[in-house]
């Protein structure tokens, strides 16, 4: 069988029309031989013949593609235009659009930067240590399950939260702390969770996360920073409140809520859950070689999609990664 396969593949390469190989007598004979096999071997033999045919078809396709591409004439790639062709024109600005998620993410990061935070983009493929272990998730801890993270064959993780940068941020800022400065950094970017998409769920989404560490960071400071951010973001004074929460990497842990802003139709009644936050767990500081008896910090993280959906009244999160121009061209 292997021999026949090699032979036929070789012959395919020599044919002017590679597709003719499917008419080869050897192949016909193999098909005819299937029924002659003893019953118990027939299945296996049949599969092998089919595999052979598939291999030939793949080779035909490759050769046909090569033949097709063969006819292409080279061009002068250094020239401004083709021979006897007009100079190309750039499309006008009215055709263009910027993705609303990216625009909003820029705006969010910009406010934090103006407040004194450095910014770095979060990695999109990371390891278990940064995603979980360094953040005080013991191995097999049930809290890991709720992150529904993906995994590669090698055990790498497309991170389920931008906190995957936290240990790096803390380690990088340790020296600053020792010289009397503080750590103030936001990490932002794309994260992933193993969730079936529906109008309110996506397996791919964006987050922005903040980390602050100093000699005297407090929960009151954290809430003040977050209120400052949202007041800037929505351009109005806002009432804020919290709800207790549980995250392994913060203690205490909170959900942060803001009063529904006027720009979103708020009339001083409703509340919006904006993000999770808390004082950084001493184990997380220790893991970055920061002495939790000397320094304390807070961290928070929230999604970007929700901000955009609220702002524009978008009712289906799946639009964002749909790539549909009908949607995208709405956002100049």
């Amino acid at each position, binding site marked *: 069988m292997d021999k026949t396969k090699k032979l036929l593949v070789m012959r395919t390469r020599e044919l002017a029309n590679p597709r003719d190989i499917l008419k080869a007598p050897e192949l016909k004979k193999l098909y005819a031989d299937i029924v002659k096999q003893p019953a118990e071997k027939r299945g296996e033999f049949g599969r092998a013949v089919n595999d052979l045919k598939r291999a030939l078809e793949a080779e035909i396709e490759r050769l046909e593609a090569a033949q*097709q*591409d063969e006819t292409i004439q080279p*061009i002068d*790639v*250094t*020239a*401004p*235009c*083709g021979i006897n*062709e*007009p*100079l*190309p024109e*750039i499309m006008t600005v*009215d*055709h*263009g*659009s910027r*993705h609303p998620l990216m625009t909003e993410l820029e705006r969010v*990061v910009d406010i934090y*930067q103006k407040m*004194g935070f450095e*910014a*770095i983009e979060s990695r*999109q*493929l*990371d390891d278990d240590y940064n995603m979980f272990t360094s953040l005080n998730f013991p191995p*097999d801890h*049930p809290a890991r399950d709720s992150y529904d993270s*993906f*995994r*590669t064959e*090698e055990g790498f993780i*497309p991170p389920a939260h931008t906190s995957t940068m936290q240990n790096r941020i803390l380690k990088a800022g340790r020296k600053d702390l020792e010289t009397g400065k503080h750590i*103030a950094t936001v990490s932002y970017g*794309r994260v992933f969770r*193993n*969730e079936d998409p529906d109008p309110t769920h996506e*397996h791919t989404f964006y987050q922005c996360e903040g980390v602050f560490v*100093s000699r*005297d960071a*407090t929960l*009151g*400071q954290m809430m*003040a*920073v977050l*209120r400052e951010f949202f007041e800037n973001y929505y351009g109005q004074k806002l009432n804020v409140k919290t*709800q*207790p929460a*549980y995250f392994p990497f913060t*203690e*205490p842990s909170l959900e942060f809520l803001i009063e529904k802003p006027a720009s979103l139709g708020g009339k001083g009644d409703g509340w919006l859950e904006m993000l999770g936050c808390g004082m950084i*767990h*001493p184990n997380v500081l220790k893991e970055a070689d920061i002495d939790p008896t000397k320094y304390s910090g807070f961290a928070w993280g929230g999604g970007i999609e929700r901000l955009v959906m609220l702002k524009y009244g978008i009712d289906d999160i799946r639009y*964002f990664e749909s*790539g*549909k*121009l*009908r949607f995208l*061209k709405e956002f100049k």
Partner: protein
Amino acid sequence: MIISLNWLKKYVDIDVATDELVALIGARLVEVEAAIDLAPKYKDATIVKVEEHHKIDGSDHLNLCQVDVGKKELVQVVCGANNVKTGMLAVWLPPKSVVPETYGTDDEFMLDSRKLMGQMSNGMLASMRELGLGDEHDGIVEIAPDFAKPGDSFAEKFGLNDTLLDIDPKSLTHRPDCFGVIGFAREVAGILGQQFDEPKILASKLKALNAGNLSVEICDTKLCPRYSAAVVDMKEMPKSSGFLTQDDVILCKAGMRPISHIVDVTNRLMLDTGQPLHAFDYDKFVKVGGVKNPKIIVRAAQPGEKLGLLDGKEIIMCEGDIVITSNNVPVALAGAMGGANTEIDKTTRRIIIESASFNLYNLRGTQFRHGIFSEAITRFTKGQPAGLTAPVLSEAVAMTGGRVLDVVDAYPKPVKIKPITVTVEQINAALGTNYIFDDMITTLENVGFKVNINNTAIPIIRKLNAIFDEEERKRGEIPHDHSIQSGVDTLTVVVPWWRTDIHIPEDIIEEVGRLNGYDNIPLKLPTRGYTMVEADELGDLKSKIRQILSSAGANEILTYSFVSERLLNQVGQDPKNSYKIINSISPELQYVRQQILPNLFEKAKENIKDGYEKFALFEMNQVFWKNAGLTNEKVPIQYDNLGVVIIDTKDRGNYYTAKNYVTQLAASLGVDVKFVPRKKSFEVETYFELKRAADLFIGDDYVGNVAEIKNSIADKFKLPHDTAAIEMGVDLILTAVKKSVSEEKFDKKSQFPEVNRDLTFQVKSSLEYAKLEDLIRENLGTQKLWFQINPVSIYQGDDKSTKNISFKLTFASYDKTLNGDEINQIISQITKRAQAQLKAVAV
């Protein structure tokens, strides 16, 4: 999780309105999704007595009943239930009342008086289902004759003037104590600033009565820290009276159903305390084990062991499951469900009640492996404390009403509680508060913590504090922390055994902050110095590129980071070079993408299908491929790429359109870009047509490619032939731009008149355009002129061996107005050089 407010009130005085309580619980414990007031739902339901009933002629099941509703006149109701009988007490829903089952739903059913089989029927007699208390619909609800009298309010008699709190317990996964009404009530007391009065149940002691018949062996205390069990002789199982009881309604309100005396007792206790219980038939248990004296052995399940469960299903146990055995024969899947072989039935006389604690991680596994999500296992998976088993067992035994024959309490390694030391300063420093010693102690002691202070001066200081504070408060000042001034600032906190979540000082800080209300903490921004924040260079560059490309009419899109094996094969990328997701949602999302462009091809195809004819899509995102290797941190090397695909279904957008985008982008970034014919394909960019592909260089740095994609590949995505695309490394651009910007100089414009000259050269067809342009540039440069070179056209006539390249040159001298001779001199220098070096003939 449903918590009855009436039940809560058994344990704690609630002196605030329900909405305020809900807000406080939300801010200090857990989000209350809804507070459901049952009163309006049941306001019309009335207990009535059936005085008379007879079959309606011509109907096989309808009865005409005259019922006493507590008023002078009897009311006529037609009832189809087969259990209706004269003399019974039933629940009547009068005309104009809404059937509770439908109350608050989109289609509420309002009863009225109407004729059935020619007889007037006023309202109805209700079943459990119609009352919204369960699924039973076989007959109407019957009430014990001595429990109520006609005309009594059903809601009042059965505790339905109640409010149910619907709790989303997702943020309570570390709080097993809150999965019982008592624990929840303790928190409510703490939130309201009250000392919680610990109920007797939790303190009840198991009477040490070991008759020596029953024995318990725990094989691994990690799997099962404690197993308490009692044998109870019931003589005869109390038969169900068939009457609805208050106890039944308690279960119904929590979303459970009354089943049998013993099961109901265990369920009510579980709701109350959070401790799940299980009951075995003692005699079956003994028989299964095959020994005279029953022997409970708790051990890890052997993978492959089988057990028939109470729900009739047979399961095959897996590694990680815990099994309860009778002398090694499985009788229950621990924490999840009992076995059919020891099920309690009508003939049961003696029972074994189990009250145990199990490893939450193991039970989590069991839960997901076997798909069992009962109220019991939900509680076990939060890690019920070992301290709870014995008191609840003792209470259960008492509630069964039977005679205790034997009690065993296996607790080989009792949990030792270590006190936690924390200072007042630590607490205030973390929270940003100014709480005094007393506030902290009261807060903690209210919910069962014991706070020890070794310093005898404390009581005096505490008193002093109170006096000072009172005066300061009167003056409107925030009280100082006098205890710190007195040098006594350390709390030694003994954690109650039910708080399995408290281990470190930060946990105590959380308790103080939370129970006093985080929202009462003053908000104060941290101070910062005036040092510059380091720029996010890559982010800033991406932002610029986004701006430039969208201004050039391109549309930014985002596509998934995961692609299918089919897509990789279509574009000729090797799937083995992609990181493969082992738990992907679908084959469509199984591999991490190696480049941006393949996704853009797919999206371009979809948008063409949607009717768009001319557009450019671009995306900036991270890509990875395996052969790139790992970083020092041993994580995959990350590439920040920009992909652009340019589509023109009418006019054939081609390589030069794409090249123009690159030129534009480079110009806006303030750098020059060089286009160098691409020599060979790179493993992740297999789809470029090499005969029409260029490598891009900024200075000496390679930054990406612009190329047409192979027609064979374009066909696969139904894209126009000669479609061109760009893929660049944004990270590479950043490095290159940083280098070259530092070399950038001000392009000083001359103040003397500019000269325009058109210049056309005939060259060999094979000559690269750039060679000629470079020559002109170099030449004008050496002549110390300000200049611009604009290409006009590239023309080829019938003679295919040559082509004509035309330029428009604009130049000026920096120090004079050029005259005709000088201009000719400049031009002739160029033409001579071109002739000599490139055999280009000026025409």
